[in-house]
């Protein structure tokens, strides 16, 4: 479904991504592990078209994404729920969600149906529908962010650190929801520092360090890998 071949990325003269080769298969839930500054967000932003790769190619369902504008990438079915949520804080929860459907704005019936599906996934958002998104708790804001991304009807949903800054109980619910989204048919690429929880729900995993992918494999095998456990799980 998604294939990255020899992708490099630079911030000025600094090489932030170094020869990235990665595959995400349809229906999979792939986790990208890495510490702060490893390059996970840079990689996501490169796939999303926010940063242009300096070498290599990003392919999605036989389409080349490099050189596409972010709006075209979203239109292709690749949607990112970015770190920090990136909501429209003064707009209501409902307006935030509806803006998620911007690329499908002419399909009003489809959007209504999709909104109901999102509200089934996050029932609390229906109650908060008219509140400004910026006034919600961190966990609720994360729900809006994921809900908004789901409104874009992604075939590949990229979630960048969705558990960041959330209470442990909320994190648990969040991972359950991500698993549910995946089981309903959306392919998920998840960047996380919470390696234990992420590996438990994932089908495949990549480990990133200093802008390079240094390891990959079946997520259950990764859970048992001594090196991964020491570096990312702390056990």
């Amino acid at each position, binding site marked *: 479904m998604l294939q990255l071949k020899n992708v490099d990325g630079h911030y000025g003269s600094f090489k932030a991504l170094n020869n990235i080769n990665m595959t995400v298969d349809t229906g999979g839930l792939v986790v990208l592990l890495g510490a702060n500054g490893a390059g996970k967000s840079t990689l996501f932003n490169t796939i*999303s078209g*926010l940063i242009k790769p300096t070498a290599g190619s990003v392919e999605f369902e036989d389409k080349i994404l490099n050189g596409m*504008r*972010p*709006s075209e*990438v*979203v*239109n292709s079915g690749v*949607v*990112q*729920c*970015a770190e920090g949520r*990136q*909501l*429209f*804080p*003064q*707009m209501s929860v409902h*307006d935030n969600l*509806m*803006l*998620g459907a*911007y*690329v499908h*704005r002419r399909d009003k019936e489809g959007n209504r149906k999709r909104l109901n599906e999102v509200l089934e996934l996050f029932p609390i958002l229906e109650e908060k529908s008219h509140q400004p998104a910026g006034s919600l708790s961190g966990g609720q804001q994360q729900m809006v962010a994921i809900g*908004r*991304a789901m409104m*874009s009807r992604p075939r590949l949903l990229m979630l960048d650190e969705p558990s960041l800054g959330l209470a442990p109980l909320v994190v648990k619910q969040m991972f359950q929801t991500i698993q549910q989204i995946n089981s309903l048919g959306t392919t998920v690429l998840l960047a996380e520092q919470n390696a234990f929880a992420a590996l438990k729900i994932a089908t495949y995993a990549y480990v990133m360090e200093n802008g390079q992918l240094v390891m990959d494999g079946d997520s259950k095998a990764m859970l048992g890998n001594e090196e991964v456990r020491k570096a990312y799980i702390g056990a």
Partner: protein
Amino acid sequence: MTTFLQQVFNGLTLGSIYGLVALGLTLVYGILHIPNFAHGALYMVGAFMSYFFMVDMGVHYWIAMAGSAVVVAVLGIICERLVFHQLRNSPPIHDKIAAIGILLFLEAMVHMFWGSEFRRMSSPFGGVMNLDGVYLREQGILIIASTVVLVVALNLFLRKTMVGATIIAMAQNREGAFLVGIDANRVAMMTFAISGGLAAIAATLYAPLNLVYPAMGHLVIMKAFVIIILGGMGSIPGAIVGGMIIGFAEAFGGYYISTAYKDVIAFSLLVVILSIRPQGLFAKGAH
């Protein structure tokens, strides 16, 4: 009391014009972070286009205003595409220099076509109504009514339409807007078009009370900057309230102190308000 009411009317008239010009300026700043120094030149081109449509082509005032708004909206889009879009990844100072370049270019173009002399533009609303000693110029009433209609229409457009929502979304969170697939180019062009259109309408409304000449945008743009700093950079209500404050200060200051000091009063007010509230009256971005 009659004098007081007369100054209220004058203040509302002036404040409406300032508010309309500042509205376009604050939209561009709040959404695209470009301090468009060329906005005053767009205002001036708007007046000349209306003059051209009315005097040279003989069309009605309203049609001239609509035509001028379309021409200046397109001119705004051209400025965005040819200049500001090309500079989107450059340091912010480049936008400022480019805006001054556009200002000088547009003024030179107008000089070339129309020369530097002052021109008078009439309107079908030249009458004056006497309301118990308060003289209400029909053009003034038109200015106030048009401003109310335009502000309400703009507000409805921004809040009730998907296209308007993309503009607000871009102002509130640029990266968030990209992530939902909002096309930044489209929003930028639309913002410049609205901004230019508003400037042209303001110029056409005010020109019959004033004169049309190539330097007519200078003082207006300086005051528009005062207004958006006063109201809070990027704030739509701030632009309107700020416009009214400056309009009233000039009308009352001009009458009770001296008309020679009316510009000094406006700028002094800026200094006083910013000393008390440095972030402006309406601190947060476009909303």
